[in-house]
């Protein structure tokens, strides 16, 4: 391809060669000839085909939101040496370059390998596709260029950010046969203190509370909580309305982070955790345990998009297969869902221990002028009504300000 400079040079050279004879001027004539000669010579410099292979390498297998990832763009020259090679790595708009650059200009000798390193900041969960890197070869004086895309696509899965959680006490009335790590408010043998009672023959001496004995002269023994494995079902609202707000600050993103934190916490405690996502369709991940299951759920959360308008009642069918009286945690704002009241009533009626976490981004939306103050007050009042309604059905419900730590907010409502 010709650049504008080349066109101007050829135009000027031709004009000088044609015009100079009229004033019998050898100087301009020779200048015109030289300019044309210069373009002709340069049409042979750094314009032949090249053979360059480009691959990408990431420093981490799993990338979490707001965590940096280092990309090595490996450029291998398999053809002739290239003097001016401009490379632009096509990145999705959701990731931003933190340091270094995805744009570079290099000189490549034959068989030379160059690595362009840059760091990305992934601020949004999702499954992203890094497109083909674009190449541009210029000849040294910017007279000709050639552009091409090199086939080298990569995918980058950014998992939702997880918060370190501790002490979330979800009591269940339905302990399973084998003890596990889910603390329930029953007497057992875990390290958590439950209460004291009078000594009776057969009690272990090491459980005697000697401090109380010193005070009251009565033998009392300490009692501890029992820990049990429990099945927990998490429900994620991914309806279109949950995407309201900015790309980064919207209820769905915060819901995904909350779910990721809870799943990680419960699985660490060796519980079985399942996930139901409803929005455009209902997607169910059956309860299971282990590291692999965690990444299955995180990958599913990374792929979630705010779509559809299915109500909460659509998950009821799938809940029937779930262990009765187990904890169910719904992460939803319950906005514009006419079926929510009926669905919540049915969930509690079946004996599930229901907890509702409603991520509240209304303050942010109002401050950012995404919604008007009138809409804010209406939406806020509606959310309060939903929370009150859920509490009246026996559920533990809370408005969660995503700026606050989830475990702290959750501890307040569970207390």
């Amino acid at each position, binding site marked *: 391809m010709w650049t504008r*400079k080349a066109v101007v040079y050829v135009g000027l050279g*031709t004009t000088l*060669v*044609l015009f*100079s*004879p009229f*004033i*019998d*001027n*050898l*100087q*301009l*004539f*020779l*200048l*015109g*000839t*030289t*300019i*044309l*000669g*210069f373009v*002709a*010579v*340069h*049409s042979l*410099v*750094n*314009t*032949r*085909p*090249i*053979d360059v292979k480009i691959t990408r390498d990431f420093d981490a297998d799993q990338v979490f939101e707001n965590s940096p990832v280092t990309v090595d763009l490996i450029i291998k020259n398999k053809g002739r040496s290239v*003097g*001016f090679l401009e490379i632009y790595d096509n990145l999705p708009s959701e990731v931003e370059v933190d340091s*270094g*650059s995805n*744009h*570079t*200009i*290099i*000189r490549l000798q034959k068989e030379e390998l*160059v690595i362009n390193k840059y760091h990305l900041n992934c601020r949004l969960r999702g499954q992203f596709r890094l497109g083909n890197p674009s190449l541009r070869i210029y000849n*040294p*004086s*910017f007279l000709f260029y*050639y552009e*091409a895309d090199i086939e080298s696509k990569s995918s980058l899965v950014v998992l939702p950010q997880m918060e370190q959680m501790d002490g979330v006490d979800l009591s269940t009335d339905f302990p399973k046969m084998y003890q596990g790590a889910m603390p329930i408010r029953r007497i057992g043998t875990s390290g958590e203190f439950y209460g004291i009672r009078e000594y009776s023959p057969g009690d272990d001496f090491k459980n005697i509370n000697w401090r109380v004995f010193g005070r009251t002269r009565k033998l009392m023994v300490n009692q501890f909580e029992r820990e049990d494995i429990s099945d927990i079902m998490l429900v994620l609202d991914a309806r279109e309305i949950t995407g309201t707000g900015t790309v980064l600050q919207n209820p769905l993103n915060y819901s995904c982070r909350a779910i990721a934190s809870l799943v990680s916490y419960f699985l660490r405690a060796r519980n079985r955790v399942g996930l139901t996502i409803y929005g455009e369709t209902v997607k169910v991940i059956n309860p299971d345990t282990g590291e692999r299951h965690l990444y299955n759920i995180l990958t599913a959360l990374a792929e979630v998009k705010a779509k559809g308008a299915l109500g909460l009642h659509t998950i009821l069918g799938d809940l029937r297969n779930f262990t009765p009286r187990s904890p169910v945690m719904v992460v939803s704002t319950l906005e514009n869902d006419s079926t929510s009241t009926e669905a919540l009533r049915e969930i509690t009626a079946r004996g599930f221990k229901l907890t509702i976490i409603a991520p509240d981004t209304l303050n942010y939306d109002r401050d950012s002028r995404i919604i008007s103050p009138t809409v804010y007050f209406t939406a806020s009042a509606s959310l309060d009504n939903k929370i009150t309604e859920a509490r009246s059905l026996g559920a533990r419900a809370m408005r969660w300000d995503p700026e606050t730590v989830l475990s702290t907010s959750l501890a307040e409502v569970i207390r």
Partner: protein
Amino acid sequence: MRTITSLSFMQAIATFSLMSCLGLAYVINPIEDSLFFKAINAMVEGIYQKEVLSELNTSIVAGMLLGLFTGTSYIFLSMNKKVYDYFLLFIFVSIMLIFLSSFREYDSFPYHVTQQLFLWFWIGIPITVGMTGIWQNSIGNQVISAFLILVMPIGLVGNTNDQIYPILGFVFSFVLYLELSYGHTRYSRLARVMYFSKEFETVLHWFLTTLVFTLALTMALTSVAFLFHDFLGDILPDSFSNSIEFNTIYGQALSILVFFMIWAVLQTLFSRGYLARQVED
């Protein structure tokens, strides 16, 4: 050599080329024959109703040195917007004072000296504009300066093969000026974006090396294009090669255009295969 050193080197050589091509332009075309200065002379004569410019010193070296001084001052003054504005105001007031005092023949004002400076300023103006283009990365100024270097010295007398060496020197330094000043603008812009890159330095060195080689090749190609005229004279019928048209500069011009036309055809044929291979890539 570091990138910034290479870029400064380019600027220095470009400035030197700019001065040498303007100097050689006036060696080839004496200022007395210049249509531009003849026009200014006629205009000034019309205003004052007497000869003004022809009584002044028309030293090209003085003009170039004044241009160099003005250009340097301008570049330094541009670093401070306020000083720059006052400087422009000062120049404007000075020009008006020269004009008014000489028009009214107010001898207390040294208008003879200032007129002399004014004439040298005009001679050196391509240097001033060109320097601004080089050191402030303004492609517009580079183009205007190149245009002035070509146009200002031109006269109707013409020139012949007797002046071939100054002409070749002019052509070489003119192309060098264009390439280095434009190259500096592009590469310095890229250097700002590629501040983190170590490889960019090698690209810049490649440009400088290639420029020297391609300029040498271009001069050789120009000679070949010139010889092509003689070659055409040998292969064409006598009636054609002995004609007046063929043996003047018009004939040479046509031969050169034929030479580059043949080059373009060969290049197109070559490029066709090249493009096909690009698609396969």
